[in-house]
């Protein structure tokens, strides 16, 4: 028994963790247990009983033969369960049989090999010594010497002018590459300006998404909701880009249910209101309308907007209400926009101002 009176003491560390390394605040007990060494090797059944050994060998080879059978089955499945044109159900069967056969072929090889290694390969524990990761003192000294020589022979340290001008050149040379990336996008120098406008303008008819048929005010019954695009979207040069900004939801509420703020009295038509469908959080389509509460829900991050209160945010990460599209009807009774939105639609961006006239 070592040091019975004082329990464990803190003693300096030996060098088993690599030379010259501090042990920090580690505590090494003077009377720690000693490593008992490897326990005696346990023989497996396959080591002791030749019959079991043979049986395992046969089992593994059987599994390998099974793999061959599966591989052939996979090829057979390719022909036996073909994809029939215009029949999606045939795809499912093709996928199933082809997949299971290939899976069987692969799994058999895997299971067989692992079983072979565990049951039949020699399993005596081997012990290998570790060495400190850092090189030996001689190696390290030689490495330093190599760098010194390189420095001396090149004059890298001595010829400061040469060295510094090279460093300068190396710093400058990637700069042109940065400019090359400018043409990732078209020439316009005002992306923020593009975000601020949509294709809605005075007189643009509100049309059904995706058919493009215009909507009469009389068709919008109480409690109904329409997914809306500008009627001339089909003719737009960049259809998807325009749609990504111009998509609108149209709803009809009882006029007395709407809390209309000053300046927006004429933006609805007899309780029919149009709001941007693009979430003011990160731009998902706010596609879910709860008829009873008149709440709009964004399915991506659950921002909720209250249509009765001009699409004000009542829950979720969005901050701004959905922009309202001022609408009215034309002479034929079709719903039309009075103008574009009075503020940018969609997610916030740095250049978005705070003083839009809404």
């Amino acid at each position, binding site marked *: 028994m070592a040091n019975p009176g004082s329990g464990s003491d803190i003693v300096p560390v030996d060098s088993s963790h690599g030379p010259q390394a501090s042990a*920090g*605040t580690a*505590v090494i007990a003077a*009377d720690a247990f000693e490593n008992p060494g490897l326990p005696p090797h346990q023989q497996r059944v396959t080591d002791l009983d030749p019959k079991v050994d043979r049986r395992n060998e046969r089992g593994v080879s059987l599994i390998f033969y099974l793999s061959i059978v599966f591989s052939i089955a996979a090829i057979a499945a390719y022909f036996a369960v073909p994809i029939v044109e215009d029949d*999606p159900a045939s795809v499912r069967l093709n996928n199933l049989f082809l997949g299971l056969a290939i899976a069987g072929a692969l799994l058999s090889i895997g299971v067989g090999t692992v079983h072979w290694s565990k049951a039949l390969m020699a*399993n005596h524990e081997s012990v290998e010594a570790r060495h400190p990761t850092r090189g030996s003192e001689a190696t390290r000294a030689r490495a330093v010497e190599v760098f010194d020589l390189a420095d001396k022979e090149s004059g890298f340290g001595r010829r400061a002018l040469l060295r510094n001008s090279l460093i300068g050149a190396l710093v400058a040379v990637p700069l042109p590459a940065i400019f090359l990336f400018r043409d990732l996008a078209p020439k316009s120098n005002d992306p923020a300006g593009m975000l601020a406008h949509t294709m809605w303008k005075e007189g643009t008819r509100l049309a059904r998404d995706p058919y493009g048929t215009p909507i009469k005010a009389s068709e919008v019954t109480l409690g109904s909701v329409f997914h809306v695009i500008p009627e001339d979207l089909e003719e737009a040069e960049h259809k998807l880009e325009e749609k990504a900004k111009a998509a609108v939801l149209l709803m009809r509420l009882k006029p007395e249910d709407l809390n209309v703020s000053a300046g927006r009295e004429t933006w609805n038509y007899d309780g029919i209101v149009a709001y941007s469908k693009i979430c003011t959080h990160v731009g998902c389509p706010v596609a879910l309308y709860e008829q009873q509460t008149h709440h709009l829900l964004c399915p991506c991050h659950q921002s909720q907007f209250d249509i009765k209160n001009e699409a004000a*945010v009542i829950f979720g990460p969005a901050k701004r209400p959905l922009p309202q599209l001022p609408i009215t009807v034309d002479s034929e009774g079709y719903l039309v926009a009075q103008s574009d939105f009075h503020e940018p639609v969609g997610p916030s961006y*740095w250049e978005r101002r705070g003083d839009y006239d809404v």
Partner: protein
Amino acid sequence: MTGAVSSYIDERTSISGFVKLMGRKVFPDHWSFMLGEVALWCFVIILVTGTFLTFFFQASMAEVVYEGSYTPLKGLEMSAAMASTLDISFDVRGGLLVRQIHHWAALLFIASIMLHMARVFFTGAFRKPRELNWVIGFVMWILAMGEGFTGYSLPDDLLSGNGLRIIDGLIKGIPVVGTWISYLLFGGEFPGTQIIGRLYTLHILLLPALLVALVGLHMVFLIVHKHTQFPGPGRTNDNVVGYPILPVYGAKMGGTFFIVFGVIVAIAALFAINPIWNYGPYDPSPVSAGTQPDWYIGFADGALRLVPPGWEFVLFDTWTVSMNILAPIIAITIWIVAVMFYPFIEQWITGDRREHHLADRPRNVPTRTAIGVAGIVYYGAMFVAASSDLIATHFKMSMENVIHILQFTLIAGPFIAYFITKRICLALQKKDRELVLHGYESGRIVRLPGGEFIEVHQPLDEYERWRLVDFNDYKPLMVRPNSRGQINPLERVRAGLSRWFFEDRIAPVTAGELARAHDGHDSGSTHANELATAGQGVGGPPHTNP
């Protein structure tokens, strides 16, 4: 014949030296060492199946009219990317299978990477000399998520398009440069006609090349350092005990490849993944309820959902600052950066510059383990939040309640998890001490001559005991003034952290302690009356903190 071939090759490559060096290299065995291997094999499977997919996929957003076999979408306008993905799924025999193998393997790839990282973290396998390999692995994890996201976006279907929409919104939320980055990335306004082609280049060229290079580097370091091993009889910090690459470990690794491959193919045969034909081509207007990203992006999506309303303001009426986007980005970044730097922080606290090749049992480093579990809970809260709407509908809760509970979990959960985990670790350590000092209950009741009944405790044998006592022990750092009588403020911080880590440590039992524990009993050989006194049972020898 074999001899002639090997000789031919060796005379042109000196490969015999490599075989001599590597062939009998010893690898220690433990099931948890397989996690990184699964990740490696997933990567191989992804490369093989991905190459097949490139033969058929067209990374173009040119509008085409779909004329393939899937009748419900026939005649619809969509991008060539979407149409070719549908062709792979419905008109190429086995195409759907390969697509599904590719996708399932990608999901498993990132899962196995993260489990592997957890294993390395909780066993302290990131300690010197493996800190840099931890950082390499960390970078691969980030790259793998990048691979996942770029690949997920390629079919240009409705769901992935909405994912890109969210990315676009995120980028636009970055102050000053966000609008321009989005503009350049998408080649104009969202969605543009460029993004799929650009993501494809990243997905099949840049990111895989980086990953292949880093996988190689990761393996080189694995060989240079040799694998860690768990403490056990005969195992020391200076050796490695296990089986040689040739034949046992090589066979197991090769077998594991086929098993991983086989399991993924079986999953791909039985379970559909990403059925884009149900979603349809991308259109900025429709979206369905219950949208979710692939699981590994869930934490980012969930973080966005957990922001309370109103976190956005406008500076001087001119610039919008989107804290509802920046806050989650910051919350995630802090977590990720903490993961990357943890090895360096812990080493700074312990001051231990020695090489460590013996893996820690998580209980023996209670504070680290508790920090790890706290981190998992933090990540987990964000991850679960990505399904907040589905949780609300499945469990008949209101959406608001789900979000509020998860917001609470995000903030308070890590602290609770930290506390509970640390207590569990300390309790387990105390149990280990009990076992070493007093043996285990044998279930044998003996009546002593005096009429007293006792249960006989059986001492551990030396091999079992060694597993329980071989671990590192640190004491809290004591700050000492330097020669000029000053105390470096940074050292004070370090001492504080060191106290936090180690002040309630439980030291391993020593031989002396065990001997003293036995001396105290007159019943000698049976180690009978083992009602441990508090002083013996817990805490070990007194370590006061001066």
